[in-house]
């Protein structure tokens, strides 16, 4: 395994920085801090961490701008922190390339889970692609394009499979509506979100996943969907 995982926290509020640092250090991460966006950008460039925790409410720079700059040359995982009702900010950040988000106030478990998932994905893309996914009763073999739910093989339409595949590829991370529409239906479909809703409903039904008590596919209103992974 590599040396201790390095996280960079870009956050201007000292109290939030403090409890983030304490919590994450207790869970074995090495923490570096940046107080402003420009400082964060500098640190990412000079001492690239393994993951960035970025507050969207920075005083000197629009968080989305920072993400866009970083994404020009790096796929480093970025998790954004944002106030609860600012959906548009989160969507913009995700569409610029952030991996996931947390709404303030958030719980420690949530924070750790999202960081873990983001790091795991980063590690995966650095090594070879993982061909299989297994979670709860759901099993997906991306190589053979086969899907099982509770041991039973499921026949999916090409669209339904594509949809599931994208969610599996980002398992545990949120995927925005726009990204799903583009990956499944192509670049021009970005505004046809009713397609997405209807096909997700069909997919859920086939996987015996009750939308009101979902086992696999979670709806994140205003943002997108997430495939559940237990940490």
């Amino acid at each position, binding site marked *: 395994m590599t040396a201790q995982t390095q996280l960079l926290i870009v956050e201007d*509020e000292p*109290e*939030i920085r*403090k*409890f*983030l640092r*304490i*919590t994450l250090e*207790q869970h074995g991460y090495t923490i570096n801090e940046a107080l402003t966006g420009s400082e964060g950008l500098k640190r990412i460039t000079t001492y690239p961490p393994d993951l960035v925790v970025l507050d969207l409410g920075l005083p000197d720079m629009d968080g989305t701008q920072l993400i866009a700059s970083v994404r020009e040359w790096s796929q480093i995982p970025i998790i954004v922190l944002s*106030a*609860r*009702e600012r*959906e*548009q900010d989160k969507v913009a950040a995700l569409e610029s390339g952030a991996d996931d988000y947390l709404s*303030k*106030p*958030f*719980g*420690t478990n949530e924070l750790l889970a999202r960081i873990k998932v983001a790091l795991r994905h980063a590690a995966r893309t650095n090594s070879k692609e993982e061909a299989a996914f297994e979670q709860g009763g759901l099993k997906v073999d991306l190589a053979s394009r086969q899907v099982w739910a509770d041991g039973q093989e499921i026949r999916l339409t090409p*669209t339904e499979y594509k949809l599931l595949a994208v969610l599996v590829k980002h398992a545990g991370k949120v995927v925005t*509506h726009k990204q799903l529409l583009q990956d499944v*239906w192509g670049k021009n*479909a970005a505004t046809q*979100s*009713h*397609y997405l*809703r*209807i*096909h*997700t*409903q069909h997919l859920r039904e086939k996987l015996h996943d*009750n*939308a*009101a*008590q*979902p086992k696999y596919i*979670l*709806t*994140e*209103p*205003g943002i997108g969907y997430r495939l559940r992974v237990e940490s």
Partner: protein
Amino acid sequence: MIPASNAMTRKEVIASPSDYSTPAYRYAASGLVVAACTLLALLFRHLIDPVNLAMIYLVGVVFIGTRYGRWPSILASLLAVGAFNFFFVEPYYTLSVYDDKNYITFIFLLLASLIVSSVANKLRLESENTQRQNAELQALYEAASALASCRGHHLIAETAIRHLGTVWPAKTSLWLPNTQDILQPVMLSPDALQETEAATWAYQHGEPSGRHTQTLPAAASYYLPLMAQGKAVGVLGLTLPYMEAHNTLINAYASLIASAIARADASELAEQQSMEAEREKLRNTLLFAVGHDLRTPLASITGAAAALSAQSQLTPQAAELAQSIHGEASRLNKLVHNLLDVTRMESGALSLNRQPYFVDELIGSALERCKDALSKHPLTLHVQKGLPLLNLDGVLIEQLLINLLENAARYSPAQGTITVAALQTPYAVEISVSDSGSGIPPGSEASIFERYKRLAGKHAEGMGLGLAICKGITEAHGGHIWTHNQPQGGATFTFTLPFAFNKVMIPDEAA
């Protein structure tokens, strides 16, 4: 033209038209004029024919007719003929005549006098009428101008009574309803009477009462209700000996005063409402600022408390305290969140970000978010299959469901079941959340959705805003929300999402 400041003359003109009674002095004037004509004729008798001397008398009669009225001019005609006969027809200085032909002259002189005096009288009456109408109009105009610049009932009443006083010698009174809608005399001219019964009757029935009417005619004054937009806003009391000639003018004044009062009422209401709106705006701005400033420190406290609770090296007491801090901080968080939502709703800043959603997935995400609060309660779901896609603000509907679920958890006993149901009616999707608590106090089913309303009892916390937010979100989507108690115990909260307001346009094919 009657000068505007000559109030005495105006009163005389308007209130005492000369066709009511002819003062004695006018008859005396007739005699004087005839005497004057006689003197004049005597002066010229050697220069002018007697026939032409008769013309002098004609002039006199015309003069009387134009100035002093019908009967004085008739008297003048008779006196003129008599004087002419006496002084200028032989035998002089007697009333007898030598020449019978002179009788014809007398007859024609009398006829001419009468006709001329009649015409002159008519002219005079018309002139008086015109003068009176002008005076009335002038008075009305002045009253209208004065009333237009009046603010407030008291000033209106004072101005009205003052202006009426310049027009009539009548004892006038103005009556207005107080806050309990009981009529009270607001302004009285000196020695006006307070006949409350007659005035109140007029106010309540919208018809005149008192003297000159069929209702309570024994009253000394005439009471006219002031009508604005078909509703009585007050009563005007007048003491007048005669009514008919003044009816139009009185009604004109009454409607002037009525509109002034109605205008004052409307502007007072508008001012109150505008002040209320300002207060509301200020309150919202304040609340929003407070909530906003509370958010970040609260986030820090919650985060730190969470981190502290998760420490493994804590003594049991420390762990308990840390949990306590975390719990209370979370409560505060929800409260601040609700506060901000409410202020945003109230200030109209709640803009819907509508996207297509199925209701069941929003229920699912709400349940997921409330996992911890609901952990001690068994959950029953009755979600109908095939509910249609709706165009909703998913974040808000999720918040609505979260509020209802958290309330249900708070008000249900430990292990009490919580039920969530969703079904389709012909007009809407209907969603309900039921708890197994003690139910809503009967009678508070409507007030429970008002801001800052709380249920009595140990669990009363944050109820003040949560349901108000639910109502706001429901109504923003064109729906209704209500509550009722279950026969088997517990309360159910139901809200609708009508299809008409939340339609999704689906093109025929999906990829």
